[in-house]
């Protein structure tokens, strides 16, 4: 068959695919999805599980190890027929949370942690790169099969350039239909319809080749079954470890592979489609596998021994002159490879741009959230990621030279991606799964996989020296890449899967059990694990209160979602009963908006973006702390208010007391005025009267002398009164001059007692003292202190009614302060008067008895204040009691 026709038909087929994809996009845009939304298309799109690895590789795999190739399809079968266990929940969560990729799901589940997103992306890229290389290799090989009989010339495909052309074409297709627009759900209708068509093409091709082999070459199904039952090739023995291990591995892979996750979860339009896919997809796999073994058997029988079994699907019809059939088979293989690469690239590019490129860009240019055209930025990031992913695949193919058998590469990729399984299943079924556990598990599993499978796959001495294979790194034999902990008897692949997943799960559980998740993580965990629980969704992490204006939000949303944002805002506003485009910023609305943005950007980025716009209005740990401290502040404030109130009450009480005192004082002041006029007037009256008599003249001499003495006495009394007043005012103003010196307390009391004895000398009055305690030297103003003592003793002499009157003077010296108590045995002073006695002109008894101006105690109080001490009434001593307190050593500054 001419090679030119092959290239031409291939080209036509590609144009056909472009047209189909374009048609799908147009239909989706116009809203007339009809057939596009059917479960059949969903099921067919799932067929990207069957890549070129299935189309070409399965025959090779079947030829080498017989029935074992079926494990790769039995695992997914079990997962799909058991969809009620895992897939249903996965798809439900994926739609509910608007998950854009498996990295996004993991990141979103573990507290919207972008670090985890990056980690999963990294694993996915590393695991998928060889797989993409594998697809490019298969296309190249299939071209080479056709070109092998061609003369050397321009038409001869040089392998590398074929791969380059294919990669370029795929990049173009993927960019065209994978990044046409930013969809809130990250769905690509054009691509889905194109791969659904390709699914039909590859099934038809394989069934056609199979039918030709069974009926055309082998002589009917009965003959084939007989032949299979008779076969006894050495490699065809069932190996229990590999059988179970590979079924489990492929079961894990069908959930975890980025491209499977993309079509299974992200591109899912209706959860009910899963019910159809649960049996239809296994049926598709069944149909794909049905003819693999017959082709392999007949191929082994009829083809030369050196034929590449991976290419038998092509070479068998070619060898029997079936050019058209070979052409169909070629297109089938081509479809398998391209559809896988397209979807894988879209999935990886979404992950790369959402978890690596965009966060980096936003970090470098935080102002971009506000200003730049984000849609453009995201799409550019996406396109660059697509080119990057395809470039990596091409690079890997160039470097590895496409030497390894197809099946081996595919299984290595499966095992790498399966490392996500513990974090994924733990995340949706176990609330206790934490970010720390997920990170530890992923790193441990990835490292073990790389050490035991990925790096050794390059061959001995390529990356890991043969020395290390034999004796382990640094001579640690228990770390040999293919015999960890001495398990050398295991099949290398099973060995790697066993250890990587075991250590992964162990680290995941240990990390989860020992760590403490932050609130966002716990809320997300509850939302994922209880995804079917309506109530649990009510309390989902939401935007509680925000400062963002609806306009700003609409602006942001429009730049990412485009026209859809406007529709969404309008619908929300209508749902809230408002006209126009701007709904209220309710938590429900913001949560929904974040989900929609997450559909384009991934959960972590969308969250970060709204956070930026909202100025941290989200519930982060810091916020919860802030809320907690806010509550504490409020509590503190109210406590302070309470304290203030009690203080106010106290002040009010004090004020009332002061007021009472003031009222009393005002009364006293009036009394004072009348008092002072009276006090001044009495001596003045007698002075005037007697001086008038004296001016009359004719008086006997002794009478004149008598009168003169009276005038003198009265003048003296006046002078004393004025002296006291003056003294008091000096003391009150603090302008008194203190004459400090050492004084013996006993002597001071002696002096005071002697002077005071002048008061009512007629009375029988005894003073009781303890001279031994009076042996105290004070540093003070002795004269002033004596004045106080005199006053107190005189008062006792004046007012003590008891007979015999007794004054006890008790002295105590403690901590640098001396107290002198004057306690008599009289009636004491009534409680209401205790506050008054220190006021000026306060005389409790009638004036005649007092004989003073009532200034004594007031002066005492002022003196003691000046001496750094106090004089106070001491209640509860039966009689009247006064306590004088003063410092032992008065410093001048205190004066």
């Amino acid at each position, binding site marked *: 068959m001419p090679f030119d026709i092959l290239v031409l038909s291939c080209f036509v087929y590609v144009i056909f695919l472009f047209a189909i994809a374009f048609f799908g996009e147009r239909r989706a845009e116009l809203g007339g999805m009809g057939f596009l939304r059917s479960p059949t298309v969903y099921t067919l799109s799932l067929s990207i599980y069957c890549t070129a690895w299935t189309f070409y590789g399965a025959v090779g795999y079947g030829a080498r190890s*017989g*029935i074992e190739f*079926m494990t790769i399809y*039995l695992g997914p*079968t*079990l*997962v*799909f*027929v*058991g*969809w*009620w*266990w895992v897939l249903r929940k996965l798809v439900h969560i994926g739609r509910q949370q608007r998950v854009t990729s498996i990295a996004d799901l993991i990141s979103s589940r573990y507290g919207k942690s972008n670090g985890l997103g990056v980690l999963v992306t990294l694993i996915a890229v590393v695991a998928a790169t060889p797989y993409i290389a594998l697809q490019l290799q298969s296309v190249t090989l299939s071209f080479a099969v056709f070109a092998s009989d061609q003369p050397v010339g321009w038409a001869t495909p040089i392998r590398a350039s074929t791969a380059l052309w294919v990669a370029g074409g795929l990049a173009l297709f993927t960019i065209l239909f994978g990044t046409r627009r930013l969809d809130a759900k990250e769905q690509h209708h054009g691509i889905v319809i194109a791969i659904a068509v390709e699914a039909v093409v590859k099934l038809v091709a394989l069934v056609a080749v199979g039918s030709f082999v069974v009926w055309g070459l082998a002589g009917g199904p009965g003959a084939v*079954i007989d032949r*299979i*039952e*008779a*076969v*006894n*090739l050495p490699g*065809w*023995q*069932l190996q*229990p470890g590999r*059988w*179970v291990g590979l*079924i489990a591995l492929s079961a894990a892979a069908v959930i975890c592979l980025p491209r499977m996750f993309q079509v299974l979860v992200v591109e899912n339009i209706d959860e*009910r489609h899963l*019910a*159809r896919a*649960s*049996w*239809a997809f*296994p*049926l598709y796999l*069944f149909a794909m596998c*049905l003819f693999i*073994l017959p082709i392999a058997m007949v191929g082994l029988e009829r083809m030369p021994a050196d034929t590449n079994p991976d290419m038998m699907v092509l070479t068998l019809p070619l060898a029997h002159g079936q050019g058209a059939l070979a052409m169909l088979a070629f297109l089938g293989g081509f479809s398998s490879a391209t559809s896988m690469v397209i979807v894988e690239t879209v999935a990886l590019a979404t992950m790369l741009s959402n978890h690596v490129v965009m966060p980096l860009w936003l970090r470098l240019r935080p102002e971009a959230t506000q200003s730049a055209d984000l849609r453009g930025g995201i799409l550019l990031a996406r396109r660059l990621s697509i080119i990057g992913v395809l470039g990596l695949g091409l690079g890997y193919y160039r470097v590895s030279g496409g030497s390894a058998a197809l099946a081996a590469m595919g299984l290595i990729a499966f095992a790498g991606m399966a490392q996500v399984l513990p974090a994924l299943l733990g995340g949706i079924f176990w609330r206790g799964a934490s970010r720390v556990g997920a990170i530890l598990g992923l790193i441990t599993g990835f490292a073990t996989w790389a050490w035991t499978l990925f790096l050794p796959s390059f061959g001995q001495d390529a990356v890991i020296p043969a020395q290390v294979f034999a004796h382990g790194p640094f001579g640690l034999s228990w770390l040999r890449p293919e015999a960890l902990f001495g398990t050398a008897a295991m099949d290398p692949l099973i060995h790697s899967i066993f250890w990587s997943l075991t250590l992964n799960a162990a680290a995941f559980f240990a990390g989860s059990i020992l760590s403490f998740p932050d609130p966002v993580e716990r809320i997300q965990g509850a939302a994922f694990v209880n995804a079917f629980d309506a109530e649990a969704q009510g309390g989902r992490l939401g935007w509680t209160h925000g400062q963002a204006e609806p306009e700003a939000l609409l602006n942001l949303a429009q730049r990412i979602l485009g026209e859809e944002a406007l529709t969404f805002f309008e619908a929300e506003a209508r749902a809230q009963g408002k006209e126009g485009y701007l709904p209220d910023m309710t938590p429900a609305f913001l949560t929904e908006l974040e989900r929609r943005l997450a559909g384009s950007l991934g959960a972590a980025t969308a969250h970060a973006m709204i956070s930026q716009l909202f100025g941290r209005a989200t519930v982060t740990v810091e916020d919860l702390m802030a809320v907690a401290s806010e509550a504490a502040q409020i509590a503190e404030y109210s406590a302070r208010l309470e304290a203030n109130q009690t203080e106010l009450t106290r002040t009010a009480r004090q004020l009332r007391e002061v007021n009472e005192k003031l009222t009393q004082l005002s009364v006293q002041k009036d009394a004072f005025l009348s008092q002072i006029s009276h006090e001044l007037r009495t001596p003045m009256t007698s002075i005037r009267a007697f001086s008038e008599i004296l001016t009359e003249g004719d008086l006997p001499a002794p009478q004149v002398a008598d009168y003169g003495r009276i005038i003198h006495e009265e003048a003296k009394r006046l002078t004393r009164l004025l002296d006291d007043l003056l003294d008091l005012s000096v003391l009150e103003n603090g302008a008194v001059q203190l004459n400090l010196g050492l004084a013996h307390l006993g002597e001071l009391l002696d002096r005071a007692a002697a002077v005071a004895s002048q008061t009512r000398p007629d009375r029988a009055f005894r003073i009781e003292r303890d001279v031994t305690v009076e042996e105290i030297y004070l540093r003070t103003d002795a004269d002033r202190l004596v004045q106080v003592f005199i006053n107190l003793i005189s008062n006792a002499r004046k007012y003590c009614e008891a007979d015999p009157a007794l004054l006890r003077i008790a002295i105590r010296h403690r901590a640098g302060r001396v107290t002198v108590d004057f306690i008599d045995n009289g009636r004491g002073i009534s409680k209401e008067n205790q506050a008054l006695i220190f006021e000026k002109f306060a005389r409790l008894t009638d004036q005649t008895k007092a004989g003073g101006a009532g200034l004594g105690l007031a002066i005492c109080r002022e003196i003691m204040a000046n001496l750094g001490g106090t004089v106070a009434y001491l209640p509860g001593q039966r009689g009247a009691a006064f306590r004088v307190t003063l410092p032992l050593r008065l410093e001048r500054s205190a004066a």
Partner: protein
Amino acid sequence: MRRPRQPLFLARATYRRRRLRDAARLVPVVGAFLLVLPLFWAQGGAGPVVVFVFLVWALVIGLAALLAPGLEQPDPPQNPGGDD
């Protein structure tokens, strides 16, 4: 005094639905069990194993197809206390 006996309410449809889900959960278990069986066969040719595996495969697909339409229907509104 005993109250007149209430007719016992059996949410028959809900009950059936629940058992249907149980059955759906059981399908992969049955499949896995049957797929492991050939490992314990006395070593013979690969032929019978191939036929058996394909038969199991077809059986499992058939079971899933049988159950799928019933599972596909959305939940009717839950009646309180209608637990398993």
